[in-house]
C-alpha cells in the first residue's frame, strides 16, 4: 500500500516537469498553429484573429501559467484544429490506445515468458536455437515494416483478418502482434538468460537433490527468482509500447491517442499535443508504479 502511495506521489513532480518540457518544446519548434489552422487560402486578418482567440499573442509565461492553472482543474483547453475540447478528443480515443497497448503487453508477456522458458528448459538444443533465432528476428524487425507485412500476408493474401480499422476483436489481432512482437522477443531472451542463470544456482541444485520434480523445480524455485529482471524489463517496455502505438495506430487506422498526437504535432495544435503527452505520461507513471508493486510482491528485498 505504502508502495502504491509512493509511486503515485512520484506522479506530481514528473507531471510538473513534463508539462514544462512539453510546453517549451511545442513553443520552440518553428511553425505557427494559427497559420496552419487558417489554411493557405486564408487572409492575414483571419490568422491574426485565430492567434488572438487562441491567446498565442500573449507572452509565453502568461500562456504557461494559464495552461497550468487550467490543466490542474482538468481543463486541457480546446483543439486548435477542430475547435473541440482536448479532454473530449482524448477521451474518445483513449480506449482504443488502451486496448491496443494492453493487448501488446499481454502478448509480449505471455509469448515472451513461454518462449523464453521453453528455450531455457528444453533438453533439445535445436528448440533453444530456433527460439533464439526467431526472437532475434522479432527484436530486430521494425514494427512499421512488420505491420505492413502482416497486412500483406493475413489480410491481402490469406484474407483471414481485416486490414484496417476497429470494431471487432479480430481487428486487433494484427495491430497487437505488430506492437507486441518486438517486446515479446526481448522478454523471451531475457527470460531464457535469467532462467539459465538461476538453474545453475546452488539452491536449485539443492532442491533437485531433495528430489523436487522438474516441473516443480522450474515453476516454484527457478522461475520465481528468474522473473525479477524480467519484471523490470516489462516495466521499461511499456514506455516503448506506448510509443509504438503511434506507428501502429497510423498504419492500421486505429483512432487512438498516438495517431491524434502525430496529427497534432503536424498542425502545431499545441493544446492537443500538451494534453496528449500529459495523459500518456500519467499512464506511463501509473503503470510503472504498478510494476514496482508487482516486483515487490515477488521480491521481499524490494519490499523493505
Amino acid at each position, binding site marked *: 500500500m505504502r508502495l502504491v502511495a509512493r509511486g503515485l506521489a512520484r506522479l506530481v513532480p514528473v507531471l510538473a516537469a513534463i508539462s514544462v518540457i512539453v510546453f517549451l518544446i511545442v513553443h520552440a519548434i518553428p511553425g505557427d*498553429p494559427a497559420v496552419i489552422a487558417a*489554411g493557405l*487560402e486564408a487572409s492575414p486578418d483571419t490568422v491574426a484573429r485565430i492567434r488572438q482567440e487562441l491567446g498565442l499573442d500573449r507572452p509565453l509565461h502568461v500562456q504557461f501559467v494559464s495552461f497550468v492553472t487550467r490543466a490542474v482543474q482538468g481543463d486541457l483547453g480546446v483543439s486548435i484544429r477542430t475547435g473541440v475540447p482536448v479532454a473530449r478528443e482524448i477521451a474518445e480515443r483513449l480506449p482504443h490506445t488502451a486496448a491496443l497497448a494492453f493487448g501488446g503487453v499481454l502478448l509480449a508477456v505471455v509469448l515472451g515468458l513461454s518462449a523464453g522458458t521453453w528455450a531455457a528448459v528444453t533438453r533439445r538444443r535445436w528448440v533453444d536455437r530456433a527460439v533464439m533465432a526467431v526472437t532475434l528476428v522479432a527484436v530486430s524487425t521494425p514494427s512499421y515494416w512488420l505491420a505492413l507485412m502482416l497486412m500483406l500476408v493475413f489480410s491481402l493474401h490469406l484474407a483471414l483478418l481485416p*486490414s*484496417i*480499422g476497429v470494431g471487432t476483436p479480430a481487428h486487433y489481432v494484427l495491430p497487437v502482434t505488430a506492437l507486441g512482437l518486438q517486446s515479446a522477443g526481448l522478454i523471451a531472451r531475457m527470460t531464457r538468460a535469467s532462467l539459465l542463470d538461476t538453474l545453475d544456482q546452488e539452491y536449485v541444485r539443492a532442491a533437485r537433490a531433495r528430489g523436487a520434480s522438474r516441473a516443480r523445480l522450474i515453476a516454484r524455485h527457478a522461475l520465481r527468482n528468474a522473473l525479477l529482471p524480467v519484471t523490470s524489463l516489462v516495466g521499461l517496455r511499456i514506455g516503448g509500447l506506448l510509443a509504438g502505438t503511434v506507428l501502429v495506430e*497510423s*498504419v492500421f487506422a486505429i483512432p487512438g491517442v498516438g495517431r491524434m498526437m*502525430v496529427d497534432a504535432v503536424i498542425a502545431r495544435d499545441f493544446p492537443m499535443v500538451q494534453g496528449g503527452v500529459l495523459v500518456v505520461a500519467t499512464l506511463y507513471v501509473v503503470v510503472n508504479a504498478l510494476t514496482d508493486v508487482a516486483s515487490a510482491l515477488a521480491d521481499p528485498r524490494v519490499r523493505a
Partner: protein
Amino acid sequence: MDRRLTTGLAALLALLPLACSAPPSGDGGEFRDQLIFSAPADATTLDPHNTTDTESDQVTMMVFETLIGFDDQMQIVPRLAEQWSVAEDGVTWTFRLRRGITFHDGAPFDAEAVRANFARVLDPVARHKRLPLFSMIDRVDVVDAHTVKIVTRFPFGAFEPTMAHVSAAIVSPTVAARAGMDFGKTAEATSGTGPYRVVSWKKDQEIVLERFDGYWGEKGRTRRIIYRPIPEAAARVLALEAGDVDVISRIPSNDITRLETLPSIRVSKTPSVGAQQFRFNLTKKPFTDRRVRQAISYAINRRAIVDNLVGAFARPATGALTSIMRGYANLGEIPYDPERARRLLAEAGYPNGFKTRIATTPRYPMGVELAEAVAADLRNVGIDAAIDVYDWGTMVGFWQGLPPEKNPQEIFIMGAGASTADADWGLRPIFQTAPTNENNYGYYSNAEFDRVIEAAMRETDADRRQALYRRAQEIVYLEDPGAIWLYENLYIVASRAAVSGLRASPLGVVTFQRAVVSR
C-alpha cells in the same frame, strides 16, 4: 475469383441501362448497401464556411449544397437556385430558389435561409475561414420567400464560380443558430440540404453518411457512404486490395502504376485544378532580375521531370493555370534550353551563376525528389542550389505571418489549386502586389499584371475577360516569371472493380451520388 468477377461485371452491365433511369436501388439485390471511401485524414470540421482542407470538403460536398454548382466539366449548373441573372449594373444578382426543399433537420429552405447564411459567412466577429472568398459581397436582400438579391461591391467577373464553391453552401439556419460556433463539429450539429446526411462521426475512425430520403433531386443510390480515414498510404492501398475499403485517394505514384495492372482495381485520372511549382522570393537578389527567373525557367527539363518522377499523376504545365480552369490560356510548354539560360544569366551579370537555396517539403508528392531534380538542372547552368527540407507546419510558417524581409527562403516549393477553378482566385491572391493580395508568398509585383488582373476581376463579358487573363498569364508565365512552372496534377482515385458510377471532380473530390458497389 475470375469467374465471379466476370459474372459480377456481366450482371452490372446488364443492369446499367436500367440503373440510369431506375429509382435508388442500393439496398439489397445486386448492390451492397454501403460504400467505404478512404483518404489520408479525417475532416477537421463539417462547417463548410469554416474549412480550407480537401478532406472536410469531400464530406461537406455530399451534405450541403450551393445555389449554383459545377458539373463534371466545371460548367455552372443550377442547384438550390433554379434560375439566376445579373442586372445591367453588373453588381445585382437575382436568384430564384427552388421550392419545397427542406434541410435534414426539417427546417424549410427559403430566401431567409440564404440571407442568414451569407450573414453567417460574412460575420466580422465570427470570422469564418472562408470569409475572404466572399468579401466582394455588399449585401443580400430577401425579395420574397423564394427570391434573393445579392449585391456585390463591384462587377465581379468570378461571381458565379465563387457562388459554386462548396463554402457558399447553405447550411440549416435553425441548427446553425442553435449550435453557434459548434456547428459542424458533431453529427448532431450538422445539417444541410444535400443527398446525404451525417448520422455519426467517430473522430479519426469514420463518418457515416446516410441517404437523405427527403432529398429534392436525384437520390443517392447507395444507402450509406462511409468515410474512413487511413493516414498511412501503403496501408490505404493494401486495404483497397484486400477489399476492406472500396475507394481510395492520394495514392503513392509507384502504387498507381502497379494498381493499374490489377484486374480487381480501377484507377481513374481526372485533370484537376492542382499544379506544382516552385516560387521565387522576389525580395531577394538575384531573383529581382526577371532575366534570372527566365534563365531558371529555361534551365529546367520539365519533360524529364514528368517522365521520370511524376508521370503517373502529372502532365507538363502549359500555362499559369491548369487546362480545365476557367480563364486558362494555352501558352505551351516552356522549352528546355540551357544554352539560352546561360545567355540570360550572363546578360543579368551572373556568367558564372550564383548560390541559392531551395526549400521543399515531403507533404507534396515527390516534394524532395522534385527539389533535387530542379537543383541538378540549375547546377547544369552554373547555379549552385542547396536543398532544405521542412515539415509542413514549418513551411507554412515561412509563408504566412512573416514579413517579406524575414522570410529566409529563396526558391520554395508550392502547390497551387484554386478551389473555385477560376482564373481570378488562381492568380489574383497569389501574384497581385501586396498589400491587396494576401497569399502572395513570393512577393511578386508587376504593375502591368496588377492592372490587367484588376480589370479582369471587374470584367463580366466572357470574351474580354478571357483576353485579359491571357495577357496576365503571358506576363506571369513567360515574360516576368512568377514561378518555376512544373506540371499540373491529375486527380487519382482507385476503386475496386465492383464499384461503378463514381464521379471524380477536378476539385479533388469524389461524388458518390450515383455510385454503387455490386456484390
